[in-house]
């Protein structure tokens, strides 16, 4: 489990974008559902997220996220009407419950719960996409510009995890050879057996940290101003993707402020789509899908790939 990063190289368009560009795109995918609670918009954002995962070839890795997201969304959908009494269309009066009072299930509260569940799902999908397309090294590389000490700690720790996990399993094997059975015994006994492992691991890791520190010292850690080298290119495709995402965000904020993307849940549900609302949705969706369209174009059209 800890031997491999959750990132897998798939040669997808989003994986080869500049880190700042792909983070902007992901940030917009994360912020949009927080800004807008309109069900149609949420559906659109969810669609964009899932499509992005699909074209990045990360469906399999993202499945656990999707399943968990759906369960959480359902839970929010069920719990909200039980807790919230607002709304005028009563579907059901429940019995008097201690502590909670009389149950009053309303259509509006269920719909609000469903929208909130979808919002949660959108956010989880955005994170699943992040895991699939951003390599941790690219992330620490970006942050090392302005927070190099923290980035150094993060990248060192990332490097150490697979090694520490291997140390843990070999320490466990050694104990098993000596006749310690980790799967038997009471809770207390098992905890005790694992604690031995923990101690062994701590001692050997601390030794390792001295070696790391000496290696860093030998390479001139802290001996002067730190230079910074970055191999990442900023290509036109990065600017285009950034522009598309930022435009989507700006349009969404504008639509929200002007009330085009509002949806009232309480006390009565509003109309789902009316007037210019759908046009706004279409334009925002186009901006959100723009990086994916570019990716599709780059794969099927060498001329485009060479130009951007």
């Amino acid at each position, binding site marked *: *489990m*800890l031997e491999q*990063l959750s990132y897998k190289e798939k040669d997808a368009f989003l994986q080869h974008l500049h880190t700042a560009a792909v983070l902007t795109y992901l940030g917009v995918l994360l912020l949009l559902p927080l800004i807008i609670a309109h069900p149609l918009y949420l559906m659109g954002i969810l669609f964009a997220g899932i499509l992005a995962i699909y074209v990045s070839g990360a469906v399999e890795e993202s499945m656990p996220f999707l399943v968990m997201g759906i369960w959480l969304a359902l839970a929010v959908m069920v719990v909200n009407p039980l807790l919230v009494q607002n709304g005028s269309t009563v579907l059901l009066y429940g019995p008097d419950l201690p502590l909670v009072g009389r149950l009053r299930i309303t259509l509006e509260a269920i719909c609000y719960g469903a929208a*909130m569940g979808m919002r949660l799902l959108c*956010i989880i999908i955005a*994170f699943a996409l992040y895991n699939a397309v951003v390599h941790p090294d690219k992330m620490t590389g970006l942050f090392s510009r302005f927070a190099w000490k923290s980035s150094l700690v993060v990248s060192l720790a990332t490097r150490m995890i697979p090694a520490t*996990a291997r140390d843990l399993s070999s320490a466990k094997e050694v104990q098993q050879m000596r006749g310690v059975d980790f799967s038997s015994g009471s809770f207390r006994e098992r905890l005790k057996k694992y604690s031995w*492992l923990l101690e062994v*691991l701590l001692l050997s890791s601390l030794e390792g940290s001295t070696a790391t*520190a000496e290696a860093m010292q030998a390479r001139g850690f802290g001996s002067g101003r730190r230079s910074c080298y970055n191999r990442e290119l900023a290509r036109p495709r990065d600017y285009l993707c950034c522009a598309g995402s930022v435009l989507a965000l700006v349009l969404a904020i504008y639509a929200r402020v002007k009330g085009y993307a509002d949806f009232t849940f309480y006390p009565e549900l509003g109309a789902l789509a009316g007037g210019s609302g759908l046009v706004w949705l279409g334009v925002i969706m186009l901006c959100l899908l723009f990086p994916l369209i570019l990716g599709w174009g780059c794969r099927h059209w060498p001329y485009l790939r060479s130009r951007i």
Partner: protein
Amino acid sequence: MIAVLLFWQLPLVYKNWELLASVILLASLVIFFAGFERSAVSSREVGVIAVMAALAAVLRVPFAPLPGVQPTTFLVIIAGYVFGSRSGFMVGAVAALVSNFFLGQGPWTPFQMLFWGLAGASAGLLGQLLPKAGNTAMLSFSIAWGYLFGWLMNLYFVVFFIKPLAWRAVLLAYAASFPMDTLHALGNACFYLLLGPQLIKVLRRFQEKMTYVEG
């Protein structure tokens, strides 16, 4: 700044609790990391923080069969207690961040970073205030963080997902998480009883070795 924002747009903030909560969350993370950036850290400190974070991260996994029980909180607390608030925060926050590179980043990452970081930072504070804190003090501190971690998580869950905020929701969330939190607290207590004093001694000795100057 937050206070100004509060007064300036009180109705907006009242309607958008989650916005305020996210601002507080991100601002506190930035403040702690900026503190670490500004401090003068030696290569040995960097090495120790990274190693402790990696260890705390790795040990999240083998205990997964025992729900709620993991030595991460315990390790973060003793690291903070011995090496101070700054290192304690970094161990907690980096452990959360880095383990999720392997287990999967999610909306939970910033919360885990902040709360584990706070556990380490507060343990550092405890170490400063009571350098000779006995086993009872440390034990109750570990148990307290077992509950506190869950409570802080609940607080954020309620703020983000239940609207309008209802006291019943708060009550229900806390009641639902109580068994898990109890297991977490019990786990912390067990790890402290089994290993605490010994590991603190090991870390103290290592710290001496780290700062030892021939003279």
